[in-house]
């Protein structure tokens, strides 16, 4: 892996330190990223509702997964309560927009900030405990928040759920998937660029230092308690933004959506995508959102003419998803981001092996 990092593309020269500190390793990679965003800008014009829906899902789950990656992948803490923060963001944004005149476009970051505040409080145990104990503490926060959602009628509408207004900005309401896609794209770009910047500046390095060797991190002047709690806060901010987008997309927020199962799915996204990689969070989300759809498509191909057969295929589909994840973890434990790096390195040297 070491040589893979130190290896640069032939004919590529960096003459300034600034050129050596960019987010994208090569000008080509940057151009590819810019072109993909431009392509995404025209996507709503040519894609049908089904694909658009999937891309929107990838967007809001991806933002939340990046948040979880900051706490799990970069800081090395465990969190089993991410879905609860995702839900808190959704309920908060819905509540603010229902109870004040603030346009929905701006209630989303407000919901993120509120979720961050709650995340900082819930993160306090993280300053003191580690590993499995922290897992249980965050599990507790998951259940406490879930219970709060179910009981706080004034805030969440209780078991009936809460209505969430469509996204509006300066009186222009975005009812359609097409227009909402741009809102999600906007937040995805902002949040991922911010995440990448965070990880190449002081506090991002501090997170990784705490993960890799907390004792020497402390000797290097890093306040362990502060950074452990802060990473929970930032992670919750991302979850809150993702959750708020989710809520306003569906138009309705209900407590059933934010169970422990979703927390585990977020963990799966992060692990499959690649722990400690900004791009990995997105890749893992794409994988986890598309896998059931691909399986569904497979089932569709096989086809069936009896109810029993349909049922059997449905079960097989669920099992195949589980199997795919297990196989993935066995053969690619470092995640998709790592695999992507390997592929790039392969092409860098093609057709020679070294």
């Amino acid at each position, binding site marked *: 892996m070491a040589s893979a990092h130190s290896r640069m593309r032939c004919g590529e020269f960096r003459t300034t330190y600034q050129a050596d500190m960019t987010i994208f390793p090569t000008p080509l990679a940057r151009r590819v990223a810019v072109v993909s965003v431009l392509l995404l800008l025209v996507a709503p014009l040519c894609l049908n509702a089904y694909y658009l829906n999937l891309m929107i899902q990838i967007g809001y789950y991806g933002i939340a997964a990046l948040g979880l990656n900051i706490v799990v992948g970069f800081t090395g803490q465990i969190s089993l309560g991410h879905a609860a923060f995702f839900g808190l963001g959704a309920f908060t944004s819905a509540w603010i927009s229902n109870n004040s005149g603030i346009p929905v476009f701006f209630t989303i970051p407000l919901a993120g900030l509120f979720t961050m505040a709650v995340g900082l409080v819930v993160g306090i145990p993280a300053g003191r405990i580690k590993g499995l104990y922290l897992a249980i503490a965050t599990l507790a926060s998951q259940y406490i928040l879930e219970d709060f959602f179910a009981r706080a009628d004034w805030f969440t509408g209780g078991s009936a759920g809460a209505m969430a207004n469509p996204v509006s900005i300066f009186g222009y309401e975005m009812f359609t998937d097409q227009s909402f896609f741009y809102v999600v794209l906007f937040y995805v770009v902002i949040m991922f660029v911010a995440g990448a910047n965070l990880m190449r500046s*002081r506090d991002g*390095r501090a997170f*990784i230092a705490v993960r890799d060797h907390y*004792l020497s991190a402390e000797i290097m*002047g890093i306040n362990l308690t502060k950074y452990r709690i802060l990473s929970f806060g930032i992670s919750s901010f991302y979850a809150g933004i993702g959750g708020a987008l989710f809520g306003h997309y569906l138009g309705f927020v209900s407590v059933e959506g934010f169970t422990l199962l979703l927390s585990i799915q977020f963990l799966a996204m992060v692990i499959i995508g690649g722990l400690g990689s900004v791009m990995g969070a997105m890749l893992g989300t794409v994988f986890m959102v598309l896998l059931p759809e691909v399986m569904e498509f497979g089932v569709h191909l096989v086809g069936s003419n009896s109810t029993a057969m349909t049922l059997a295929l449905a079960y097989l589909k669920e099992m195949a998803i589980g199997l795919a994840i297990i196989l993935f973890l066995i053969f690619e434990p470092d995640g998709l981001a790592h695999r992507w790096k390997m592929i790039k390195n392969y092409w860098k040297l093609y057709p020679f092996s070294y």
Partner: protein
Amino acid sequence: MSENQPLIKVDNIFLSFGGVHALREVSFAVHPGEIFSIIGPNGAGKTSMLNCISGRYQPQKGQITFKGQSVIGMKPNIRCKLGIGRTFQNLALFNHMTVLDNIMVGRHHLLKNNFLTGPLYWFSGARKEELAHRREVEDIIDFLEIASIRKNIAGTLSYGLRKRVELARAVALRPDLILLDEPMAGMNLEEKEDMARYIIDLNEEWGMTVVMIEHDMGVVMDISHRVMVLDFGREICTGLPDEVMANEQVKIAYLGVGLDDDEEAQETSGEVA
């Protein structure tokens, strides 16, 4: 040197773990500009002493004054800001980071950008700041001759290089006092010579006061200004390298009691105890 205020003054330190007394009444002072070595057999309490200074351990009794200010009870990250840096005996690098990032972590307490300004990289001045510090870090990289590995992942490097990266990381803190825990352990002759050169340069050109633990007596006696010998948690001798080499108690601590002068030696060690 003695007229100056000592940079660090350790006074009657007592540290125990349950019934084990790791340090007993250890006192010494290091003056600005010195290379001060701590030697002693295994388990003598050398690393415990460094841990007390850097803040990993809190001694039960005694006083440590750094730049005239007591550091007892301070957390390690605060002591780092005061100007105490260190390396570890068993490597403690951030193994999944690049060498460059490892050293940049050393700039943590000198950098100002944070989780709010960091994400706004281009607009908040974070990039400018990072660049300025990158230049300083590159000076250190040049000095320690690790430019060719700056983008390598620290965990994949050889032992000798990792030791050097650790030194670079500690130097990046810009400490006034640098604590080196066995900087030459496990190195071959050539690497040791390099390391000795770096330590002397750090002391003379970068103006750092060095407190070093080392087992290679040749190096210790060559580059140290003063040496302290610990044995079973006690200070048995402090002085110039030649004085320490000539000291009877030091010989006993290292070589054991000779057969012919058994009685005499036991008397001496009795006095010490």
